[in-house]
């Protein structure tokens, strides 16, 4: 049975944290595999990591507010959100480690 005890901002930013952690890893893999893209990121703000940070933090904030407005609280209980965050961290951290070991 779904639990409705979380507020919408918590669900929005919790889901955003889970999603953007995965997108962060995908952006790392894409920029490392595409040197012209990495160079464009470096040219944009002086260092590729600065641009990377602006993109993912901006995405986290925008997605957090958008999801907070769009999500149905009854669809996301605290336990379900907790599981989504755990899996996101395992997948994004593990994939990032695997990528840099193999790269």
């Amino acid at each position, binding site marked *: 049975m779904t639990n409705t005890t979380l507020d919408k901002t*918590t669900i929005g930013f919790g889901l*955003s944290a889970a999603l*953007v952690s995965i997108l962060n*890893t995908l952006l790392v893999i894409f920029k490392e595999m595409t040197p012209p893209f990495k160079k464009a990121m470096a040219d944009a703000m002086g260092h590729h990591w600065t641009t990377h940070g602006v993109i*993912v*933090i901006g995405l986290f904030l925008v997605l957090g507010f958008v999801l907070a407005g769009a999500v149905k609280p009854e669809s996301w209980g*605290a336990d379900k959100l907790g599981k989504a965050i*755990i899996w996101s961290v395992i997948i994004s951290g593990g994939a990032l*480690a695997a990528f840099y070991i193999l*790269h």
Partner: protein
Amino acid sequence: MSLFGIQVSVMVHVLFGVLGIILAVALLVYVLNMSEKNIPMIRSLSLWTAVSMILSYVIGGWWYVVYYVHERDIIRAGPWKWAHTFFMEWKEHFFFALLFLSILLPIIAYRNDLMVPENRRLMVIVTAIIVLIGLAVDGSGAVISRGVIVGYMGRVAP
């Protein structure tokens, strides 16, 4: 900036990172011993954990972008080049997950009823992940520092 200032700035970055981990551990203890009386302390600790992690990110990020390149070249020329190619690369990117969860922490603490067991479990999960990632990136930072030293050792004592 002077060499002293550069070294102090990177130490301040580490200081705030470690402080964030300590605050998160304290928060975990309070959340595991939840009572109405502990809620103000839990909310305060969640906020200061986030502030500490954000300061660590801003100071460390500035140092990384402006000054790390010199240390990176020393590491990459030395026998521990993986201190950069794995540990720094992993740390500098995975830190964002830690940052997002640190920002999420006060949102959970201030906007929800923490006496509800499910909400308390979510708080425990997010706080525990912050501690684990914090320790992992802190350990990576230690490896990177040793990578610089090993790089210099190779230069003076082949």
